[in-house]
């Protein structure tokens, strides 16, 4: 397996890194503490193409490959996982399903402004009583004339507080008939579209994760994405793409925590020497670097498969499972190396530690991923 990056991919990495170091690093701690969405940086990212990474050029995107996408998400998350989350969710489960399942008209209406970063996308699946079990959703869309009337209660919507174009998973079909899950797009500003309070979360605090509720919200019938009943298919395809993004995000968090720890190991002196001279610290740094690298290689493999048009679902699931769990171990060690200061908001590793935790939960929990991987082993 060739894991070397191409010249273009290396330029992608260095240019995104340089942008994030200059624009995002100085505010990364503050936007976490203030739970503030950094519009000033996000707008610049939109102009640089970060909101349409893989979208074809004719729809306003940069037309890049999956590996470049993974690199970009890693680099943003290395500095601010909350902003990395905004970008990966927007690209992979907001924009991608529109490109993959949308009609030409829908792509023009939604994909173009999404890819240019003029509008932000969100994926609204989870409900108070349904998450991993997508069939268990209770939201509905009923066709009345040429409009869908949606009633939905969606929670933990990433980008919820700022999203303009929302993919709403709903039940369609007639009462008593077969249960169909479909995706209907609702745009912010439509009567009945209500953004709920922001969630007060442990990490990813600069992302406006919120609930979105739709009360008799009527949208044109042409807002149905794909066909009636395609919801699970769209959801699974979106989550395959989404998993790679979350895995890349976990790599970025781990890399960021590793770099902070290496720096701290040189600065902090105990027993007359920098703590990096102590074998106990060296062991942890070696383990952290190995696990971050292993995670990165799993992500690159999944991205490479996708770029070659081969099945990548299993590889993406393994990458997401491993990278998310590794990022929790790595950030835990980072806090340990920093000692009491690592438990303080004065040091960035405290934020990395909180941000890492949710990567094991969202876009499929570790447990769901193990189920998916096991089914893959059976060839089902």
């Amino acid at each position, binding site marked *: 397996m060739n894991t070397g990056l191409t*010249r*273009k991919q*290396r*330029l*992608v990495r*260095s*240019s995104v890194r*340089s*942008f994030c170091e200059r624009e995002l690093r100085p505010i990364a701690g503050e936007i976490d503490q203030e739970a503030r969405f950094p519009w000033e940086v996000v707008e*610049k990212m939109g*102009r*640089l*193409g*970060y909101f349409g*990474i893989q979208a074809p*050029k004719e729809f306003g995107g*940069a*037309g*890049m490959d999956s590996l*470049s996408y993974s690199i*970009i998400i890693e680099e943003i998350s290395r500095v601010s996982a909350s902003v990395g989350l905004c970008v990966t969710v927007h690209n992979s489960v907001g924009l991608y399903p529109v490109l993959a399942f949308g009609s030409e008209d829908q792509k023009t209406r939604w994909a173009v402004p999404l890819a240019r970063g003029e509008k932000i996308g969100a994926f609204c699946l989870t409900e108070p009583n349904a998450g991993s079990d997508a069939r268990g959703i209770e939201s509905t869309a009923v066709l009345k004339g040429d409009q869908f009337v949606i009633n939905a209660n969606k929670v933990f919507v990433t980008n919820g507080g700022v999203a303009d174009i929302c993919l709403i998973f709903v039940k369609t079909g007639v009462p008593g008939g077969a249960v169909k899950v479909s995706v209907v797009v609702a745009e912010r500003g439509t009567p009945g579209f209500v953004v709920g309070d922001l969630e007060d979360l442990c990490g990813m605090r600069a992302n406006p994760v919120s609930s979105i509720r739709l009360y008799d919200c009527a949208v044109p019938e042409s807002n149905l994405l794909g066909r009636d009943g395609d919801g699970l298919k769209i959801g699974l395809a979106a989550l395959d793409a989404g998993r790679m993004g979350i895995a890349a995000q976990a790599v970025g968090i781990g890399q960021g925590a590793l770099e902070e720890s290496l720096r701290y190991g040189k600065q902090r002196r105990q027993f007359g020497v920098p703590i990096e001279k102590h074998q106990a610290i060296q062991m942890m740094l070696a383990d952290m670097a190995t696990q971050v690298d292993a995670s990165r290689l799993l992500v690159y493999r999944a991205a490479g498969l996708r770029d070659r048009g081969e099945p990548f679902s299993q590889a993406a699931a393994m990458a997401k499972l491993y990278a998310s769990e590794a990022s929790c171990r790595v950030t835990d060690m980072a806090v340990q190396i920093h000692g009491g200061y690592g438990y303080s908001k004065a040091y960035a590793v405290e934020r990395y530690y909180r941000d890492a935790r949710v990567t094991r939960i969202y876009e499929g929990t570790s447990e769901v991923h193990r189920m998916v991987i096991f089914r893959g082993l059976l060839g089902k």
Partner: protein
Amino acid sequence: MGLHFVVCIKSVIMEPPEGDIVRSEELLQLNPYDRPAVEAALRLREIRGGTVTTLSMGPEAGNAALAETLAMGADRGILLCDPAFKGSDTLATSTILAAGIRRLAPFDLILFGTRTADSDTGQVGPQTAVSLDIPMVTGVHSMEFMGADLQVERRMDEFIGKYLVTLPAALSVSLRSFVPGDIGLEAIEAAFEKKALETWDLNDLGLSPEMTGDAGSPTRVISMTKVKKDRTCELLRGAPAEQANELVARLKKSGML
């Protein structure tokens, strides 16, 4: 028809590893001092139109930095690459760059960074200008067209010097004067799509081997060793007054007071 701007750039190693240095692409990057020169050329092109060509001497890996200048907005990139160029000192490098620039004629303005981040001599720009027999102003921080001429400013200690330069001419551009914008993803895609990189070798430049590489270099690097900083930190203890007395005593003893 516009003007022809040529920017000479170098791929440098920012973080040298221990032991022998292999100039691999992973270690190389565009010399940070060259970025303002590229940016200045792009801004002048905005005003007067024309083309920006970037030029670099070095191994094949140097194409990465040239590709980056295309993503920044340059029109064309030329790598001057030949086994005979290996070991070139600043004079031989200037000879090679000047030959490349002559081949790019007609040209109007040749731009350089003030120095390189790895070898730090600042000699290549001026030597190239001498070789081309064109005027040069170094360390320029602003430039403005005055008719067909270019008015430039450079800072020297407490003074600002203003010069009116008739083209063709050469300039080196100070580091903080022309800050390049961020490179967008579409620009990166476009840079690799337009296939605007070329490689020229010894024959293309019409040079003979004794003018380049080790043979054409009057200077030799004999050794390069890392400077060890023997700085230690010692904490003075006791009440503040005692610490101050101890500090003064030590400074006196060391002859610093």
